[in-house]
C-alpha cells in the first residue's frame, strides 16, 4: 500500500535529483548523445558574474525578508496580546494571515499595481502635491520593495505560530510576577519573550533553508530594469535552463545552490544549538 507513494518519490524526487547531478557533468546537446564534460559546467557557472550576483541578490533579499518578517511578527504578537478588544484583535490577525494564503502572482500583481505610476501610492503623493515616484524600475528601490512585500505576505503565518506559543504560557507565571510587583513590560521581557525563543529559533532555521528558494516572487515581480538587483538563483536557473536550454550550466548551478543551502542550514543549526546551550 505504501508502494505507489514510494514509486512516486522514486520518479518525481530521487530520479530528477540524480539526473540533475549527472547532467551537471555533461555537455548539453539538443540532438544526439550527451558528452561527459567534467567540471567545465561548474567552472563556467562559478565564473559567471550573473550567477554570482544572483547568489548575492538571493542572500540579501532572503535574509532581509526573514529578519523583517520575524521582527514584525514578534512585535505583532506582543502587541496583540495586550489588546483586550476582541474584534480588533481577531480582525487584525485575520488580515495579516490572509496574504499568506494567496499566491505570489496575486501579491506580486497587487504590489506592482499599487507602486506603479498610476497606483495608489503615487495617487496619494500627487494628492499631497509632490512629484510621483518611480519605484518599480528603480534599481535602488528594487531590493527594499522585495523585502517589504515579502514581510507583508509572510508575517501573518509567523504570527499564527507564535500566537499558539503565547496562548500556551501558564497564566500563573504572570500572576506571580504581578504579585512580585513586576510591570507588564518586565513581564513581557522575562516571561513572554523567553517562551517565544525556541519557536523563534525554529522559524529562523526553517527560513534559512528557504532563503535560496525564492522563485515565485522574483518571477512575478521582475522587470528588465531591475533584473540585475532581483535576479534570484532560481530565476537564474530557470532562465538558463528552461528559456536558453543550457541544461548542463543550469544543473551545475542548481548543485552549487544545493551545496550553499546545505552549508547555510548546517551553520544555522550549529549556531542555534550554541545559543540553546548558553541558556542552560
Amino acid at each position: 500500500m505504501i508502494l505507489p507513494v514510494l514509486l512516486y518519490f522514486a520518479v518525481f524526487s530521487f530520479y530528477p535529483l540524480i539526473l540533475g547531478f549527472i547532467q551537471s557533468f555533461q555537455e548539453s546537446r539538443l540532438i544526439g548523445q550527451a558528452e561527459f564534460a567534467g567540471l567545465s559546467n561548474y567552472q563556467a557557472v562559478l565564473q559567471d558574474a550573473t550567477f554570482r550576483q544572483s547568489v548575492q541578490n538571493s542572500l540579501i533579499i532572503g535574509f532581509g525578508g526573514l529578519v523583517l518578517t520575524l521582527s514584525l511578527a514578534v512585535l505583532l504578537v506582543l502587541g496583540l496580546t495586550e489588546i483586550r478588544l476582541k474584534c480588533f484583535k481577531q480582525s487584525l490577525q485575520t488580515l495579516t494571515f490572509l496574504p499568506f494564503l494567496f499566491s505570489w502572482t496575486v501579491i506580486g500583481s497587487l504590489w506592482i499595481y499599487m507602486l506603479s505610476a498610476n497606483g495608489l501610492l503615487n495617487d496619494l503623493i500627487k494628492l499631497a502635491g509632490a512629484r510621483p515616484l518611480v519605484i518599480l524600475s528603480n534599481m535602488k528601490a528594487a531590493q527594499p520593495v522585495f523585502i517589504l512585500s515579502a514581510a507583508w505576505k509572510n508575517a501573518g503565518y509567523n504570527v499564527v505560530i507564535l500566537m499558539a506559543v503565547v496562548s500556551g504560557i501558564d497564566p500563573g507565571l504572570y500572576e506571580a510576577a504581578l504579585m512580585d510587583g513586576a510591570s507588564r513590560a518586565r513581564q513581557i521581557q522575562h516571561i513572554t519573550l523567553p517562551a517565544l525563543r525556541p519557536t523563534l529559533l525554529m522559524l529562523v532555521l526553517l527560513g534559512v533553508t528557504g532563503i535560496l528558494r525564492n522563485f515565485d516572487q522574483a518571477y512575478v515581480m521582475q522587470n528588465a530594469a531591475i533584473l540585475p538587483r532581483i535576479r534570484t538563483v532560481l530565476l537564474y536557473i530557470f532562465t538558463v535552463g528552461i528559456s536558453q536550454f543550457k541544461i548542463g550550466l543550469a544543473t551545475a548551478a542548481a548543485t552549487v545552490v544545493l551545496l550553499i543551502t546545505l552549508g547555510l542550514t548546517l551553520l544555522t543549526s550549529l549556531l542555534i544549538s550554541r545559543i540553546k546551550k548558553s541558556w542552560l
Partner: protein
Amino acid sequence: MKHPSSARRLNQLSLPLQIINHLFLGLMFLSMLIPFLYVFAVAFSTRQGSMAAGVKLWPDHFSLDGFRTVWERADLGTAFVNSLSVSAIGVLLELFLSLMAAYVLVIEQLPLRRWLAGLILVTLTIPGDLTLISVYVLNKQLSLLNSYPGLILNGLVSGFAIMLLKNYFEGVPGALAEAARIDSATEFQIFRLIYLPLSLPGIAAISFLEFISKWNALMLPATIISDAKYYTLPLVLKQLTLSSESTSGIDYIAPNARMAAIVISVIPLILLYVLAQNFLIEGLTLGATKG
C-alpha cells in the same frame, strides 16, 4: 468592590507604551487593509474609472466590466476551471495515496517500517525547486509537458503531508486497533472504521493546506506548460502583469480587469478560510512544531 487605585494593579502596559502599541497596531491594520480595499475598489470600477487619476478606495460606479473583460479576453474562465479541477483531483489523489502510506507507517508489525519512514523524510530535504531542470527533462521523457496529467502529477504527493497524517494516526489509541484485530477485523476495516473517523479533523486540515498549495502553484506549471489551453490561474495572472508593463498596443488590459482577476483567484481561498480557519490554523501549527 472596585477601588479607584485598584485600576493601577490591573496587569496592563504603562500608558505611553499602550499608546505606542495602539499606534503600531493601527498602522499595521491600515497597511494590511488598504491594499485589499484598493483591489476591490478598482476591480468593481468601470474601465474609465479605474484609469482616472485620484485615490480610489471605493468603486466609482459599481460595475462588473472588469470581470467580464478578464473572463472573456484573458480567458480566465478556462484557467479557473483548469485550476479548480487540477487542484481538486490532485488533492483527492494525494489523499488516497498518502492515507495508505501513512497507515502502513503506523502498523507496528511491519518490517522496515522505520527505514521506510526515513526514506519519506529524506524527500522532505530534497528541494524540489532546485531539481527544476531535471524535472523538465523528466516531464519531456514521460511526455507530460503541456498536459493535465502533468499539472496533476508534478508535486502531487508531499512527504510533509504523509508525516503529518502519520502523526495524527499515532494519536489513535493502539488498543482500539488491537481489539479489532482480535475480533478478526481486516486491516482495511480497521483503517476505515477506526483510524479514518478518528483522524478526520487532521485529514481535513491537510486537504485544505494541500489544496491551497496546489491552487497557488506557479513554478512547476510555469516550467511544464507553454500552451495557453492548459494555463492555470497563477499563469494567467502572471501574463496579465506582464501585459500591464507594455502600455502600448491594442492588448492593453485596464486595471479594473487586472484587479478583477486577482479577486477571482482569491475568492476560493477566502471562502476556504472562512469555512475552515480552525482546521487550517491547527494544521499549520502542528506542521511547524512537528515538521
